[in-house]
């Protein structure tokens, strides 16, 4: 709606009053929203595209950059980069045939990493649970190459969900900021860290008939993955607000729709999942480790100080967005910091001289302040 139409006098007085109220409210909200700092960094999405609720292309997707290099995705993960231009020429089946062994190998790598004595039946149960989880969360969607040539990754749940495992930025903002939601293997490992915790708990859950009932365990662990550990047995409650999601998970577990697309269930993965997950290349063609960020020290701080000896250590707090509670670095007693600014209420913004990180701490926790 255009602004000038809001004030158009052709309508009745009541309607005009309503429009003026609406306009004033909108104008009033502009500074409000500006003051609120806008959306959290992690929810920023550029070059967003939609998609279809089908394997490999579920909506929506955002540019992988700047969280990951498009070139790296193409070179390292090219085999599981869903190409929007190839949908009509068998692209979906090719994608699924490549993604299936990646998920299968990831399930195997992960459960053996956590429990080297795991039985073959549990390994298979865990793999089926992961196939279903990925179906439920993202319809096996992660990387997508748009018809415009831009490399994207899947974002769902009002942009809060990242990638194939739908890592939620509200719970895991720090991980998302460092790219763990964007990189396919990191995304799977991060999601499995949470899912496996629920999987272990599910063995003793009241709603699971026996530890060997892997379908019940998958349903239990997914309820917790979706709703938190307090929701372990949510799937048994037909009156739950989220019962429909739990029923969908069950249907997907039974249907195993991915099988229809996969040409050879025993085909090897073209990605060395275990190597990629351990974070050290080269893995086949070689995954590059992210370069450590070099933070420049402020050249002319207000003062220099060291942390009070009476305090073993303190944590600086980042005040970006709407939260100051995010811990991102540690300072030991005696650590040197530069004072960058003061709040006037006992808090000072400091920069660690060892790693360049900035944050806010209480002034009373500083000693030996030198101008």
């Amino acid at each position, binding site marked *: 709606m255009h602004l000038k139409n809001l004030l158009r006098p052709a309508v009745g007085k009541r309607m005009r009053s309503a429009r003026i109220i609406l306009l*004033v409210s909108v104008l009033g909200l502009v500074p409000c929203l500006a003051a609120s700092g806008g959306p959290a960094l992690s929810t920023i999405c550029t070059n967003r595209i939609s998609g279809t609720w089908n394997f490999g292309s579920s909506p929506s997707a955002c540019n992988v950059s700047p969280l990951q290099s498009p070139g790296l995705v193409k070179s390292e993960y090219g085999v599981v980069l869903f190409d929007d231009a190839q949908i009509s020429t068998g692209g979906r089946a090719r994608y699924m045939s490549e993604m299936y062994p990646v998920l299968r190998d990831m399930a195997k790598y992960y459960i053996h990493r956590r429990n080297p004595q795991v039985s073959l039946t549990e390994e298979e149960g865990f793999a089926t649970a992961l196939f279903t989880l990925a179906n439920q969360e993202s319809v096996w969607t992660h990387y997508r190459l748009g018809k415009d040539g831009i490399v994207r990754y899947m974002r769902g749940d009002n942009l809060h969900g990242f990638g194939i495992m739908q890592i939620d930025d*509200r*719970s895991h903002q720090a991980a998302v900021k460092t790219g763990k939601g964007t990189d396919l293997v990191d995304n799977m490992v991060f999601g499995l860290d949470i899912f496996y915790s629920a999987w272990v708990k599910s063995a003793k859950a009241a709603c699971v008939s026996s530890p060997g009932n892997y379908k019940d365990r998958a349903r239990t662990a997914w309820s917790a993955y979706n709703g938190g550990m307090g929701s372990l047995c949510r799937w048994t409650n037909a009156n739950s607000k989220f019962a429909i999601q739990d029923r969908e998970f069950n249907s997907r577990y039974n249907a195993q729709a991915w099988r229809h697309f996969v040409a050879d269930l025993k085909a090897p993965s073209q990605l060395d999942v275990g190597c990629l*997950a*351990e974070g050290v290349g080269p893995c086949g063609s070689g995954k590059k480790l992210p370069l450590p960020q070099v933070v420049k020290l402020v050249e002319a701080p207000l003062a220099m100080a060291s942390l009070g000896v009476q305090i073993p250590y303190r*944590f600086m707090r980042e005040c970006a967005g709407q939260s*100051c*509670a995010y811990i991102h670095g540690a300072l030991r007693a005696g650590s040197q910091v530069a004072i960058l600014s003061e709040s006037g*209420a006992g808090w000072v913004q400091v920069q660690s001289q060892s790693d360049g990180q900035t944050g806010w701490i209480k002034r009373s926790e500083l000693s030996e302040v030198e101008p």
Partner: protein
Amino acid sequence: MKIWHLAITLGLAIVCGWWLNSQQPAPKSAIRAHLVTRGLHIPMKGLTISGARGPAEDKPEEIIKIPRSIKEYVGELDRLKTCYGRACAYPVSDPRSYELAVGQDLKKVLFQMAEWVRSEGIDAHEVSEKAREFLTSDDGFVQSAALDLISTQRPSADNLDAILANVLAGYDSELIEHAMLELERYESRAEYDKIDQALAQALTTGAPFVAREVSEHLTPFVNERSFLFFQDVVAHLATQSASRINLETCLSDFQRKHTSGG
């Protein structure tokens, strides 16, 4: 259009602006004594905070009371914890929103309590008990605040066990650096052994990101007593893994310093 329509609307806009501004951490702005700067966890006397925010744009309406004693802090934490099991005034817009919002308020009160306990120099078993209780949370925000609270207290066997069982054996790698700094405060032989075992467990069968984080902060734990122990651990790690490379680097650094007398 009556003038009072406009006045009400403008009033609403101003209130909205004030409210949203009050969510801003921006410590540069003067913090008046009667206002609460939410993110900085400064306890204020005799106040209630309304409209406490959950993560991101969630806007729960649960009222948080600002406690002024251990008893009041414990009471407020207990009250908020019961919200996990009953319907408090938090949004249920998606499966996680409610629990996340409860966790955000718990985190806030725990951080406030830590700040208060630290500034008052309080060392009391009730504080450690609460910290341990919330260290078992599966919400990383709550755990981080509980870890902050536990670090205000003297080391104890129970606190050590809680850190090892809930953080080192957990899956939130963001907590590891803090936890390992806390572990450095434990200095008895029995505690060392317990810590070494837990570190080895985290490295070998722990959550992969936790293992990697542990391996990056091992230096203070590698010494003459533990050197051979950690050398054995290397053999249990994947040949091509960040954890193994970090541990090997740490061991060779120690060996080099030890042999050169540094």
